[in-house]
C-alpha cells in the first residue's frame, strides 16, 4: 500500500481533527435536543365542531382591512360622518395589535404572544403572519388593540414596541395604543392618541360561524373606525373633545370602551 499517511499517523491526525471539530463546536450554544412530540390529539374528531381546526402546528395569517361603515377608508380626501354628526377626514391610523389569543373548544386560551405595530396606510404592516400556532379546535379569538399592562409599564423592548416608533408617551411613560387623526369640517385637526390599561381594547371574536380546517388559515378582519364613535356610547367630537393625548384624558374611557368591537371577522380562508 502506498498510503500517504501511515495508519498510525492517520489515527493521530483523525483524533486531532475530531478534537479540532469539538473545539469549534464547543463554542456554540449547546444544540437543543429535539424530542419527538407525541402526535397531536385529533381535535377534528370532536363531534359537530364548528370553528377553526388547525390539525398540526401551523401558521396564522391575519389581514386587517380599514373601513368606515363597511367601506374601505379613503385617506385625506373623503369626509366621514359619525353617529354624533361630526364630519371629518382621516389622515393617519396607527395602532398596536397584540396578544392574539386563540380559545379552544375547552375554553383554554393560547396566547400567541405577538406584538405588531400596524399603519393603515402601509399594506406591508397590515398583513401579519404568526408561526408556531399550536394545533387545536378553536372557537374564538381575542386580539388586543394595544399593549398589555405588563409591557405597558416596564422596560424597553426592541421590535414593534421600540419607543423610537413614537407610539410611546415619554412624559408619562407608556404606549399609545391607537392613534387616529385628521381634519374636521372647519379645517382644524382632531387627534386621538388612545392608551391606558383601564379600558384596554381587547376584541373578542366568535369563530363558530366558520367551519375551516387548515394548517395556515387566513383571517380577513375588518376594522371599522365608525365603531370608535359609537357602541356602547356615542362619542361626540364637540362634547367629548377633539383631542386625546394621554391615558387619563376625559374622553379616553368612553373611546376605550367603544373600541372593544372595532374588529370583525369578514372571512376565513383555509
Amino acid at each position, binding site marked *: 500500500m502506498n498510503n500517504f499517511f501511515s495508519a498510525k499517523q492517520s489515527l493521530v491526525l483523525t483524533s486531532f481533527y475530531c478534537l479540532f471539530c469539538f473545539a469549534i463546536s464547543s463554542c456554540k450554544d449547546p444544540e437543543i435536543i429535539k424530542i419527538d412530540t407525541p402526535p397531536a390529539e385529533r381535535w377534528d374528531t370532536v363531534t359537530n365542531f364548528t370553528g377553526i381546526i388547525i390539525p398540526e402546528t401551523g401558521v396564522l395569517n391575519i389581514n386587517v382591512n380599514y373601513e368606515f361603515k363597511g367601506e374601505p377608508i379613503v385617506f385625506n380626501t373623503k369626509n366621514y360622518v359619525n353617529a354624533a354628526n361630526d364630519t371629518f377626514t382621516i389622515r393617519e391610523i396607527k395602532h398596536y395589535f397584540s396578544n392574539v389569543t386563540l380559545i379552544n373548544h375547552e375554553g383554554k386560551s393560547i396566547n400567541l404572544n405577538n406584538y405588531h405595530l400596524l399603519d393603515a396606510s402601509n399594506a406591508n404592516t397590515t398583513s401579519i403572519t404568526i408561526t408556531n400556532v399550536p394545533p387545536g379546535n378553536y372557537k374564538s379569538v381575542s386580539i388586543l388593540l394595544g399593549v398589555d399592562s405588563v409591557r405597558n409599564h416596564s*422596560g*424597553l423592548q426592541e421590535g414593534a414596541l*421600540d*419607543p423610537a416608533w413614537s407610539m410611546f408617551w415619554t*412624559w408619562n411613560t407608556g404606549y399609545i395604543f391607537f392613534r387616529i387623526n385628521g381634519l374636521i369640517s372647519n379645517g382644524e385637526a382632531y387627534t386621538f392618541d388612545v392608551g391606558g390599561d383601564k379600558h384596554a381594547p381587547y376584541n373578542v371574536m366568535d369563530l363558530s360561524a366558520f367551519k375551516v380546517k387548515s394548517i395556515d388559515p387566513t383571517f380577513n378582519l375588518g376594522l371599522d373606525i365608525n365603531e370608535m364613535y359609537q357602541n356602547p356610547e356615542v362619542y361626540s367630537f364637540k362634547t367629548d373633545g377633539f383631542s386625546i393625548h394621554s391615558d387619563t384624558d376625559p374622553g379616553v374611557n368612553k373611546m376605550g370602551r367603544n373600541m372593544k368591537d372595532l374588529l370583525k371577522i369578514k372571512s376565513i380562508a383555509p
Partner: protein
Amino acid sequence: MSLKKIFIVGAALTFLVIACKKDPQTGDPFAYDPTPYQLKIPKAVGWTSFPIPADNPMTVAGVELGKKLFFDPILSVNNTQSCGSCHQQISSFSDNRKFSMGALGDVGHRQAMPLFNLAWADKYNLTNHKYFWDGGATDLERQVIGPIINPIEMANPDVFSVIARLQKHSEYPNLFRRAFGSDSITSVKLAKAIAQFERSLISSNSNFDKAERRERLRTESERNGFIIFSTEKGDCFHCHGNAGSPFFTDFRFHNNGLEEMPKDSGLMRITMRAEDFGLMKTPTLRNLSFTAPYMHDGRFSTLMEVIEFYNSGTKNSPTVDPMISKNFHKGGLNLTPSEKNDLLNFLLSLNDSNFVGLK
C-alpha cells in the same frame, strides 16, 4: 501512548480551551464583553442593594458606553448639548441654572434633578411613578427617551435620527458591540447603556457617612441639627427618610406647601387624581451645596431660604402634606436662629465632594 500523540492531544486540548475565549485569533478589542460591573454600594446601615432589570444587567462595557453617551452632544439635534450639559457633575449632575436651556435655546420650567442614588426608587417606590419631578417615568431605561426627543431639550425630531448618527460614528458601533454583542445600535440599547451609567452614580462619602462609619466625629452643631431633622421639631424625616435610611428621600411625592395654588400640577399631571395636585418627588438632601437653586421651580437660591420657608413660610392648600399642615396652628416650626444654623450644618454634612469631583 507515544509522546508525540500526548503532545498532539495536549495541543488540541489547549486549543480547545483557548478557542472558547473571546476571539483571541481575531484580536477584536471590541468583542462582546459581559464582565459584570461591581456597584460601589457601601457596607453601612441602610445601603442595601437595589433591583436591576433582568434584561439590562450592568457590565463594565455597558457603564462605560453609557458614560460616553451621557457626555456626548451627539445626542442633541444640533450637536450642542449632552445629558451632562444640564446634569453637570460639578452640580451633582444637576444644573446651577434655575431652568436649563435646550439645544435650540428654549428654557424649561422645572429645575434639573440631580442624578445619584437613583435606582433605590425601584426598591422603595413600587408604583409606576418613580422618576421625574412629577413621576412621569416608570423606570430609568424609559426615562432616557424623553429628553432626546423633547423639543425644548435635545430637540431631535425622532429617536431614529439619533441612532443613525451613532451608527455612522467611528467609535460607537464598536462600543455597542462590546457592550451588547452587536454593532447594530437601537434606541433600546442606547437607553440601556445610559441607564446603566445612571445606576452606577452612587454618592455615599459625605461627612455624615464618615461619621456613620466612625471615621470622624459629628460637630456639636451637626449633631443638634441631626436631632432637629429626625424629630418632630424639624419634622424633615417623614419625607426625607429617617436615621435608618441613607438616601434622605422617601422616593415619593408630596405637596410641601410652597403655594396656596400650585402652578405646576405635579403628580396629578400623570395620574389625573385630584389628591395628587401639586405633589412633587421628594428630592434627596445629599449634595445640597452643589444642587442650588432649590425646589422644582428653583425659587430658592440658598439653603437658609429653604430652612426659613419650612420654618415659617409654608402655605395651606387642599393637598398640602399633613406633616406640613400639622404645624400651621402654631405658625410653623418656630426654630431659633441657632437651631436653624444647626440644621444647616447638618445638611452641609451631607455633601460628598468626592462625588462631584472636587476631591
